[in-house]
């Protein structure tokens, strides 16, 4: 397990809130991120993750609470805060009228960077994003994964020490996701602070030193992935399927097996230290599940435990 590096916080949020007329998108969340840490916000769609990211990114005004990035309040020092950041938004917003390499150069100009720096830098970042042979291509011609990598390359043009990634791999196929994770991991290794939102537990487990579980604008739990699983779930989970008609009715007969029982519409989850042993008990009671599966607990289980709902609806 990676140990979070110590140091003064580069981001500090205290009772941060954002209310719209009809609902509270972010409702009093507090956290600190030290330099070099990889920090995640895990939660379902609409939990307030993106809104939090936009406030950290200095593009959205908070309703109340305190927020500093590198010791600066983004509401008073917007350009200064944004100059420190690299931002990968949830939806790509590349300029499709420009070629791949020009997208990087044009973006670098926003930071007042000279072309003498930007030209070689753009080539270097294309190499990093494995897009060198697409340098002269139109953005239209790129696959989803390539566009995502170009967006990440673009966010690095000013060599930010803090990178904000809002659902970096949502909508990508597994192979493209793995390539992206690899690139992000390299950035983390080179000391960049990563702040990322995701609703994929595997992404959170792969990339985050520490994370907060967010639901309805509030923090439900905080810790490293392993810590959260230890605290909020058992070591193993037994998944049983009895057919959609019977899952809930059979739950009553399963009482007492394992530490906790979670009947879902499509399956029943039994939380136990030893999944195989729990399965033997089920069989011993004369129950015959259609399928059974023993697996390690994941953040998905933590989320289910904390909110009673699953991450991806």
């Amino acid at each position, binding site marked *: 397990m990676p140990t979070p590096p110590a140091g003064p916080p580069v981001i500090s949020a205290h009772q941060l809130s954002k209310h719209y007329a009809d609902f509270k998108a972010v409702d009093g969340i507090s956290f600190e991120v030290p330099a070099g840490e990889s920090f995640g916000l895990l939660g379902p769609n609409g939990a307030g993750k993106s809104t939090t990211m936009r406030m950290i990114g200095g593009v959205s005004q908070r309703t109340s609470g305190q927020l500093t990035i590198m010791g600066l309040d983004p509401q008073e020092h917007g350009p200064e805060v*944004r100059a420190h950041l690299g931002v990968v938004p949830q939806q790509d917003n590349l300029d499709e009228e420009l070629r791949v390499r020009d997208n990087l150069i044009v973006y670098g100009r926003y930071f007042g960077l000279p072309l003498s720096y930007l030209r070689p830098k753009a080539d270097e970042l294309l190499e990093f994003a494995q897009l060198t042979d697409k340098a002269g291509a139109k953005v239209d011609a790129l696959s989803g994964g390539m566009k995502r990598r170009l967006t990440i390359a673009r966010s690095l043009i000013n060599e930010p020490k803090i990178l904000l990634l809002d659902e970096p791999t949502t909508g990508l196929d597994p192979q493209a996701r793995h390539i992206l994770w690899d690139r992000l991991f390299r950035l983390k290794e080179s000391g960049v602070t990563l702040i990322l939102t995701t609703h994929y537990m595997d992404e959170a487990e792969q990339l985050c030193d520490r994370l907060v579980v967010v639901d309805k604008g509030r923090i439900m739990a905080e810790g490293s992935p392993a810590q959260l699983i230890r605290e909020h779930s058992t070591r193993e989970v037994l998944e049983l399927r009895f057919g959609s008609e019977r899952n809930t009715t059979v739950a009553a007969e399963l009482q007492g097996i394992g530490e906790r029982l979670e009947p879902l519409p499509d399956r029943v989850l039994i939380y136990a230290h030893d999944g195989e042993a729990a399965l033997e008990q089920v069989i011993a009671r004369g129950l015959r599940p259609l399928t059974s599966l023993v697996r390690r607990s994941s953040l998905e289980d933590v989320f289910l435990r904390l909110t009673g709902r699953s991450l991806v609806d």
Partner: protein
Amino acid sequence: MTERTTDGSQEAAVLAPYRLHAHKPEVSARRARAFGSWYYAEHVLRSMTSYRWTLLASSVGTPVMYLFAMGVGLATLVDRNAGEAFGGVSYLAFIAPALLASATMMTAATEFTYPVMDGFKWRRVYYGPHASPLTPGQIVNGHVLAVTVRLTATTLVYFLIVALFGASPSATGIAAVPVAVLSGLAFGLPLLAYAASIEEDRGQFALVMRFLVTPLFLFSGTFFPLDTLPVFLRWIGWISPLWHGTELGRALTYGQDLPAWLAAVHVLYLLVLAVVGLRLARSVYTRRLGK
């Protein structure tokens, strides 16, 4: 398309993404505060150059087409019968400044509508610079600057062609170029504020073209003096930036009578529209991007 996986030869490059050194964030912020509008204008101009041939063809083709159709074809009939109706100058000279100002109006109508929707909604182009040190106000300024450059270039080409046709006899004629650009902005900037406020495209821009641009083009004293229109239609000209720009242009290109006070009113009207439009647009952008 195949996604490449990492091999040994790439290792050096990928492990050192920060080999070069950018200047410090403080420097970025300071430069962006000072020159941010220009940086965004640079971007828009770069995008425009990706379809430069289309732009060039239309900025040369359109005037030539109009000048031939109206100024040569129609003018032979008009000049034979008009007498003093056009202030004693050829019909070509009469419509040339009006065509100049209409061209900027039409270009502004294109540049300040669909690209705005593209920025906020379709391809969300504005959200890239918005995450950088630039401010929403600078994004507006940059967009406007770039369009001003385009308007100036197009109008200049147009004017040269007009001059080649011999339709700008006065020495002050060239000053009709900035006047035409100003009238384009006086029309375009309020439109920009409106375009930025549209959340959902339900064909509003097509309506703007049909029921705003076209009537203004036809009834702003473009092809005949405004006072030949019945009184109840003249207001269209009075509120139209195109008419104010055209009247100034006529004074400049062939010396149509224009008292100083009236010239001042024309300029002031155009300036007020442009400034109010720009301020409105800036506040709409700031509100919408900062949501």
